[in-house]
């Protein structure tokens, strides 16, 4: 009887014998669930009492504790929910909250990032002096200081300030209980896109980290809807990409370091907000597309609990956002940026014609980097960017955080600019390499929509167990990014041509 092969069959037989029971005309399962809930309510009501001295009607008769507590819940948090989850006001409030979040980050990150940039690049100069004093060979100095150290410095200077402001604020919202409200507001949109309402939750988690968002897709039970959620998770900018978006928006649309800073900050905020909304819109569109083609089906229903608003704990938020998020992302970026920086330096200083010897400094022309960049240049220009940026995106596959720093490394080590003095000169470097607002916009769009980072792809593979779906999760967003950037760049060129 205990044979594992015959046991399931035996159980199935027992179940078949047992099935079909009805209790007072009710399905037996309904009867059992009903009995459980009734018993739970009975015990709960017998053991709950209105607390002495509590708000209204402390002398009210005993049997109504549940009802009275529900009445009192209609107080501030219930009214706040009425506002935050109302069809129109909820969406407007969401825009407002996100806008304030980005604005604070943009304004707040400006000064410390300049300071940090000056400090770190000053330290880099000191290191260079040290290497020269020790008569270190040029290639060693180039590899370690100009390659590894400088890309590390870029990563820290570009990313740390926005992260140190954005993450605590984001964690604050999370602790307060706002994110499930966002999910609630977006639920109907996702349902209409043929996806699972819970995808609004996993998407919100993607704002933190796409790999985490992909893992969170486990809360979606239907495989069809789970795949939709997994494949589209990368369309919301994660922690690794926010700093890039924020830096570029403040440089090219906020007039960083220019007079009229307030207006500039608002403009930059509007750009970041618009990008996030575009990401959400693309998420919905692609979900709709998938739900209409390869992943056809009917959306399943679910229950989303709105947790109570809770007073956030400042200490815990700081610890968690600084250690769990800021330092985690920064460490990951730094670990990848250092070798990537060295790689870029080597690529920028080894010429194809003479690969055997590492020269003390390339004379330009045909270094590996310039060859790769010029190979990618036509495609880059077609997408409103250039070859170096595309190289940055490719080398940034392990972590999106390093795309901008790697691109900068490419520019600076290719010799267009010998001295970089800090973040304030970031704009200078980019403009000197032919960047315009259109370039910045295309880079931001590509960053928003392109293939997920290596970690996320690995996670997708683990979660789906399928190479096919992992490949789709990489190719589909890339196709979207290429299409959107080509349209934007082409459209802008047409407009310029039509109205010179």
């Amino acid at each position, binding site marked *: 009887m205990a044979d594992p092969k015959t046991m399931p069959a035996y159980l199935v037989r027992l179940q078949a014998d047992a099935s079909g029971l009805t209790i007072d005309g009710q399905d037996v399962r309904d009867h059992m669930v009903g009995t459980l809930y009734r018993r739970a309510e009975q015990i*709960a009501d017998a053991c*709950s009492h209105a607390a002495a001295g509590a708000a209204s009607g402390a002398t009210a008769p005993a049997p109504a504790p549940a009802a009275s507590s529900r009445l*009192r819940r209609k107080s501030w948090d219930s009214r706040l929910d009425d506002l935050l989850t109302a069809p129109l006001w909820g969406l407007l409030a969401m825009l407002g909250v996100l806008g304030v979040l980005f604005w604070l980050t943009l304004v707040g990150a400006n000064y410390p990032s300049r300071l940090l940039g000056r400090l770190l690049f000053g330290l880099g100069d000191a290191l260079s002096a040290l290497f020269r004093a020790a008569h270190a060979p040029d290639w060693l100095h180039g590899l370690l200081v100009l390659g590894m150290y400088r890309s590390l410095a870029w990563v820290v200077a570009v990313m740390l300030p926005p992260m140190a402001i954005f993450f605590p604020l984001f964690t604050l919202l999370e602790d307060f209980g706002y994110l499930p409200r966002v999910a609630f507001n977006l639920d109907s949109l996702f349902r209409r896109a043929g996806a699972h309402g819970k995808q609004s*939750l996993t998407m919100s988690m993607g704002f933190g980290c796409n790999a985490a968002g992909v893992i969170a897709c486990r*809360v979606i039970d239907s*495989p069809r809807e789970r795949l939709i959620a997994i494949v589209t998770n990368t369309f919301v900018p994660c922690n690794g990409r926010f700093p890039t978006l924020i830096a570029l928006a403040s440089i090219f649309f906020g007039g960083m370091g220019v007079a009229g800073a307030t207006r500039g900050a608002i403009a930059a905020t509007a750009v970041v907000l618009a990008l996030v909304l575009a990401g959400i819109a693309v998420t919905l569109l692609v979900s709709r597309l998938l739900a209409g083609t390869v992943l056809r089906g009917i959306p399943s229903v679910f229950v989303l609990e709105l947790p109570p608003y809770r007073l956030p704990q400042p200490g815990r938020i700081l610890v968690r956002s600084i250690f769990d998020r800021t330092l985690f992302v920064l460490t990951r970026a730094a670990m990848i940026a250092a070798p990537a920086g060295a790689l870029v330096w080597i690529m920028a200083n080894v010429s194809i014609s003479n690969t055997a010897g590492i020269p003390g400094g390339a004379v330009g022309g045909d270094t590996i980097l310039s060859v790769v960049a010029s190979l990618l240049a036509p495609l880059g220009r077609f997408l409103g960017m250039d070859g170096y940026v595309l190289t940055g995106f490719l080398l940034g596959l392990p972590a999106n955080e390093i795309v901008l720093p790697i691109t900068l490394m490419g520019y600076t080590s290719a010799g267009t600019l010998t001295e970089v003095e800090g973040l304030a000169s970031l704009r200078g470097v980019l403009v000197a390499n032919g960047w315009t607002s259109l370039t910045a916009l295309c880079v931001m769009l590509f960053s928003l929509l392109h293939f997920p980072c290596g970690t996320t792809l690995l996670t997708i593979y683990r979660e789906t*167990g399928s190479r096919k779906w992992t490949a789709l999760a990489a190719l589909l967003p890339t196709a979207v990014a290429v299409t959107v950037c080509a349209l934007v760049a082409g459209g802008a060129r047409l407009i310029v041509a039509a109205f010179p």
Partner: protein
Amino acid sequence: MLDASTIASPGMPPVKPLQASRLALSGRPVVALAGNPNTGKSTVFNALTGLRQHTGNWPGKTVARHDGLCVSAGRELVLVDLPGTYSLLANSAEEVIARDFICFARPDATIVVVDATCLRRNLNLVLQVAEITPRVVVCLNLIDEARRKGIEIDAPALARDLGVPVVPAVARDGLGLDQLVATVLAVVDGQVVPQPVLPRYAHDVETRAARIAAALEPMLDGRLNRRWVALRLIEGDPTIIQSIAEQRIDG
């Protein structure tokens, strides 16, 4: 509620319910941590294990299972944080994971964290856990929030009505957690033997359950709760047979 037919996810790797935990293989007592989503379950877990598991005001935060070591008064317990669920009726992947762990891994005790501000909904899970195992300890969390809402819970009365120990707590501030661990240890050691007061179903259901339970006895040889398995068969739970078969084959 979800449609139960969406559960058996073909083509997707199942979220493994019983991955062998290195901590659990050490012979230390295993304590499961169950509860509705967003009741402070992860906060209790972190406080007891000293881990900084990410907690958030966010239902569904804990999707997978987490294990941690709880050291108290020279004793070591392996604490297993189960995904937050409203029930164990196998409506979703989380519910199957939580149910299978309590049922098949047979932890030495199960803590059910309940939210004192919505006791009615939370107790339902306590009753379902108690149907599987008598070794249940209720952690009555968020009593501060309940008090602010004007709700006072009579913990001794609750313990009497449920037939299992109830420990009031404010996990966020660490209040009541020492008492919780002490109670759990007492249950693990058999000094306290909870005798849950289980809901009785209609006469037809109970007699049929008794008959099936008797038929199951030689097969389950005391490894699973017979009445509970019989009840699942009667209600036509589509996942239980699969779960039993998998557990048996895995050893």
